[in-house]
C-alpha cells in the first residue's frame, strides 16, 4: 500500500492563506472611487443599488474560487467532514458580530426570503392565530404570509399601513395602538406573530424596530424581524434586542457571496423550529428521544448545497476590517446617503423623503421628477421603462411607487461619491422627461395597468411586468424579459442555444 499523506481537518485560514496575505501587504484606499478597482463592475457602470444584490469584492471572489477548488479536491471529505469546522467558525464569528449570546443562536440559510419562510412555516398555526404584516413587507415575505393564510384559512392576517413620509414617533404610536387592538380582539389562547422590517426595502427606511419589538413583547406577541438589509448597514445586538427571530442577508451589505444569510433565534424561540426545509436526515420526531428540537444539527446539512457563500463570510469580515471597520463604513455611507439625497433632490427639483434623516442609514429615497398628474396611479409600464432606461445608460438605482409618487431608492456604498448622485440626478431628469413624452405619444389610457408583457409589444414600454390590479402592492419585483441592450452589456449565449 503506497504511503499517502492522510487528510487532517484544518482551519479555513490555514488552508487558504491568500486573503491573509492580501490584507497584510497593503493599505486600503480612501472611501470613494478609489475603491472601484477592488470591484468587478463594468467600466463606467454607476452602481447606486448595492441594496438589492450586493457586490462581491475581487479579493473575495478569488477566495471563493479557492474554496471551490478545495471542494472539488476531495468532495467526500468536504461534505462529510471538511466543511463542518469552518462553518461552525463562521457561525461563531457571526454570533459575535451580531451580539448573539451563543453560536447555537445562529444558523445559515440561502437568503432572507428562505430564512423568513423557514421561521413562519415552522410555527404550528391554529385557528384564531393572527399574523401581522405591513403593506411594505417585502414581496416574498408578504406572499409567504398570504400562503399561510390560504392554506390555514382560520389564521387571520392583520395588515398595518405604513405610509411615508412619517416620523418614528408616529410609527411607534400607531404600532402601539395596532398591537393593542389586535390583542384585544384576538380569541383566547391564540398566538399573534408580528413580522417587522428592521429596514424596509421600498422605501429604503431604517425603522425603530427595537422599540417595535419591545411593544410586541410587552403584549405577548411574537416578534419576527425581517432584517434583510441590517447586517453590515447597522450595528446589531440581537440578544439584547428582545426579538424572537431575526433574519438578515450577508450578501447585501456584509460583502459575502450571494446565497448567504443567517437566522438568529433566542433559545426560547428555537423550540418553534422543528424542521429545516428540506427536512434533514438528522430530523428526529418529537418525543422522549428528542425532548428539545435538534434544529442546529439539521441546519448543518439538509441537502447538497455549495457552502462557499456561507464560508465567504470569513473573508467578508476580514475585508471590512481591512477597509476601515464597521464604524468608519457606516459613517461614510450614512453621510453620503444624506448629502447625496439632498443633492439629488436639488438637481431633480424634488424632495427627499426623510429630510431629518431619522430613517436614513445607507439608503436614501428621493421623489422622481414627474409631473404631478402623471403619478396618480401605478403603471407597471413606467416601472419597467425606468429600469430599462437606467440600465441603458449604464447605471442603476431602484425606483418604486409609494403614495401616488414615483421615487428612487439610492444606496450609498464605499465606492460611491457625491458626483455619482449628480450624474444620477441628471439622468433621471432626462429619463423621466422621455417617459412622459413616450407615454403621451402611446396614448395609454390614464387608468390602465400593464397586464402582461405582450399587451405592450406595440409601443416603447417593452418588458412590462404583469401586475394584478387587485394586488395593491408596491413591493419590488424583478422585471421579466427585455430586449434592451445597454452600453457595455455583452452576451455569452453561444453555449446554451439548444
Amino acid at each position, binding site marked *: *500500500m503506497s504511503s*499517502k499523506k*492522510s*487528510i487532517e481537518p484544518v482551519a479555513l485560514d490555514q488552508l487558504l492563506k491568500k486573503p491573509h496575505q492580501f490584507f497584510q501587504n497593503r493599505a486600503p484606499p480612501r472611501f470613494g472611487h478609489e475603491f472601484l478597482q477592488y470591484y*468587478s463592475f*463594468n467600466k463606467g457602470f454607476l*452602481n447606486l443599488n448595492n441594496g438589492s*444584490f450586493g457586490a*462581491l469584492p475581487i479579493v473575495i471572489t478569488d477566495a471563493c474560487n479557492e474554496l471551490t477548488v478545495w471542494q*472539488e*479536491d*476531495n*468532495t*467526500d*471529505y*468536504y*461534505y*462529510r*467532514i471538511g466543511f*463542518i469546522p469552518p462553518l461552525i467558525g463562521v457561525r461563531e464569528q457571526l454570533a459575535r458580530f451580531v451580539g448573539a449570546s451563543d453560536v447555537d443562536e445562529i444558523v445559515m440559510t*440561502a*437568503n432572507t426570503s*428562505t430564512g423568513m*419562510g423557514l421561521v413562519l412555516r415552522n410555527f*404550528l398555526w391554529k385557528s384564531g392565530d393572527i399574523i401581522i404584516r405591513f403593506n411594505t413587507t417585502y*414581496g*416574498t415575505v*408578504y*406572499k*409567504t404570509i398570504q*400562503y399561510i393564510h*390560504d*392554506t390555514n384559512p382560520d389564521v387571520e392576517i392583520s395588515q398595518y399601513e405604513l405610509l411615508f413620509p412619517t416620523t418614528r414617533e408616529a410609527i411607534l404610536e400607531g404600532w402601539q395602538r395596532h398591537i393593542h387592538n389586535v390583542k384585544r380582539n384576538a380569541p383566547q389562547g391564540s398566538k399573534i406573530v408580528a413580522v417587522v422590517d428592521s429596514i424596509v426595502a421600498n422605501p429604503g427606511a431604517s425603522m425603530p424596530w427595537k422599540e417595535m419589538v419591545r411593544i410586541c413583547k410587552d403584549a405577548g406577541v411574537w416578534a419576527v424581524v425581517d432584517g434583510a438589509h441590517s447586517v453590515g448597514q447597522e450595528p446589531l445586538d440581537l440578544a439584547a434586542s428582545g426579538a424572537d427571530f431575526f433574519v438578515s*442577508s450577508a450578501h447585501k451589505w456584509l460583502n459575502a457571496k*450571494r*446565497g448567504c444569510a443567517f437566522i438568529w433565534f433566542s433559545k426560547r424561540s428555537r423550540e418553534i423550529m*422543528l424542521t429545516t*426545509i*428540506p*427536512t*434533514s*436526515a*438528522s*430530523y428526529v*420526531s418529537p418525543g422522549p428521544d428528542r425532548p428539545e428540537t435538534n434544529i442546529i444539527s439539521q441546519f448543518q446539512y439538509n*441537502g*447538497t448545497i*455549495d457552502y462557499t457563500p456561507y464560508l465567504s463570510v470569513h473573508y467578508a469580515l476580514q475585508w471590512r476590517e481591512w477597509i476601515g471597520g464597521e464604524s468608519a463604513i457606516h459613517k461614510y455611507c450614512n453621510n453620503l446617503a444624506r448629502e447625496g439625497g439632498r443633492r439629488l433632490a436639488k438637481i431633480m427639483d424634488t424632495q427627499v423623503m426623510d429630510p431629518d434623516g431619522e430613517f436614513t442609514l445607507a439608503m436614501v429615497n428621493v421623489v422622481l421628477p414627474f409631473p404631478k398628474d402623471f403619478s396618480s396611479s401605478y403603471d407597471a409600464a413606467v416601472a419597467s421603462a425606468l429600469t430599462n432606461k437606467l440600465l441603458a445608460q449604464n447605471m*442603476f438605482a431602484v425606483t418604486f411607487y409609494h403614495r401616488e409618487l414615483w421615487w428612487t431608492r439610492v444606496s450609498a456604498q464605499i465606492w460611491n461619491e457625491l458626483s455619482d448622485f449628480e450624474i444620477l440626478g441628471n439622468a433621471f431628469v432626462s429619463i423621466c422627461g422621455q417617459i412622459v413624452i413616450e407615454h403621451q405619444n402611446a396614448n395609454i389610457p390614464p387608468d390602465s395597468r400593464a397586464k402582461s408583457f405582450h399587451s405592450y409589444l406595440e409601443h416603447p414600454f417593452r418588458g412590462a411586468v404583469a401586475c394584478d390590479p387587485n394586488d395593491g402592492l408596491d*413591493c419590488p419585483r*424583478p422585471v*421579466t*424579459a*427585455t430586449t434592451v441592450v445597454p452600453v457595455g*452589456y455583452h452576451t*455569452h449565449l*453561444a*453555449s*446554451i*442555444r439548444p
Partner: protein
Amino acid sequence: MANVVSQYESKPPPFGHEMRKCFSFDPEYINMNHGSYGSLPSPVAEAIKPYYALAEANPDLFHRFTSIDLIRDVRKRIAKFIGAAHTEEVVFVPNASHGLNTILRSFIWEEGDIISSCNTTYNSISRTAEYISDIPPHPEVVQFTLLFPTSHSEIIQNWRAYVRSLNEMRDQSAQKLGRRPKIVAIIDSIISVPGALLPWKEMVKICKEEDVWSVVDGAHSIGQELDLNLAEANPDFWVTNCHKWMYAKRGCALLYVPKRNQHIIKASFPTSHAYKKGGGSNFVEQFEWNGTIDFVPYISASCALDFRAWLGGEHVINDYCHRIALEGGKRLAQILGTEIIDQDQDFQFTLSMVNVAVPFPPTMSSAFEIDMAFRRKLLIKRKIYPAFFYHNGKWWIRCSAQIWSQVEDFEVLGQAILEASKEILEEFGDGTEKKTMGIEDKVEKVN
C-alpha cells in the same frame, strides 16, 4: 471574454485515469463515490466563469434580466433532454431534497391520508415523510419493504400487492371518514443505497391504475439513466439532481411537474412574490425568483451538457461507466470473497453504481460507528472511499464508476477494504460478544 466553445476544439482525453485531467481531484485521491455529491469537470468550471463575471459586472442587469433569460433557455434545453412535453413543466430547484419537499408539502394533507415510503427511501426524504406525519392532521406513513437480493419482476409483483393493500386501507378509512383519502407514494427511480435502478416506470403505472399519486425521487437519474422520456413514463412528479451524474455545479436540480398536476403545487419554497392562491396557473413564474441565490449553477447545467456532448454523448459516457461498474464490481467481489447485491442475471439493477458486500461475519453489528470507522480508515487514512451502508443483515459498499475510473481502482479498493475490515473486526468485535463501542463519533451522518 474567452470563447467558451474553443476549449472543445481538441479531442477529449480517453476514458480512464487520463480523464482525471478534466477534473481537479487531489492526485492521491481515488474517487469512487461520485454518486453522493457529483464532481465538477474543470471545463465546466471554466465555462461558467463568464457568467460569474456578468453577475458582478452589473448585478442588477444580471439578476433582473440576463440570468432569467439564460435560465429559461437552459430549461428549454433540459426539458428536451428529459423528454418533457413542455418546457413549462420543468423548473430549477437547489437540490432533489428541496424539490421533493416542495411537492410533499404542497399536498393538503387530511386525516386518513397515506404517505408511502420504502425502507430504501433516501434518509432525508423518509424524515420529510415523518415530519409531515408528526404535524396535524397526521397522515400515516406506510412503508414498502424492498430487500435485496431480488429481481425487477419480483419488485413489480410485490409493489402491485402492496399498493392494493394500501387501497384496502383507504377503503376502510373512507367508510369512517365519509370521503376518500389520498395516497401519495414516494418511488425511487434509482435507489441511493444500494445504488440500484428500480422498475420505476412500471411502479408508476401501477400507481396510476390504483389511483395513487406517484412522486418519483430521480435524484440519481439524469446523466446516468439513458433516454429519459418523462412524457411517456408520465409520473405525477419527478425530481433529479443535475449536479450528480450530469456534471452541473452544486446545487442544481430539476422539479418536473406535468401541467395536469401544477395546481397541486401551491407555492414554491420560499414563497415567490408572484404567488397567488390556487397556484398552477403561474407555476414557472413562481419558481423564477425565490430570493437572491447564486444562479450560475442552474446555468451550468447547459455547460455540463456541452461537456458531455464533447465526450461523445450520453451513450458513450454511460456505456463506459456501466462496463466498468460491472467489471469492477465483479473484481471487487472476487478480492473480498463476497458478492454483488445485484443477483439478477441481466444485472437489471446496475447502471453506473455497483454494490458489493463487505467481508464481515453475519453477526457483525449494524452500528453507525462501523460506518464512521470505515470513513476514518478509508477516506482519511487511505484516500479512497466508496459509500457504506447496512442492508438486509449485511454491510455493503456502493461504488460509483465514472469516466475516470478503471477496473484497477476496484482492486486498490479491494485491498484497502480487506485491511480496514480486519482492523474494524479487531476493534469492534464480530458482534457475538458484548464489546464496548470504540470512539464516540459526533460527526453527523451525511450521504
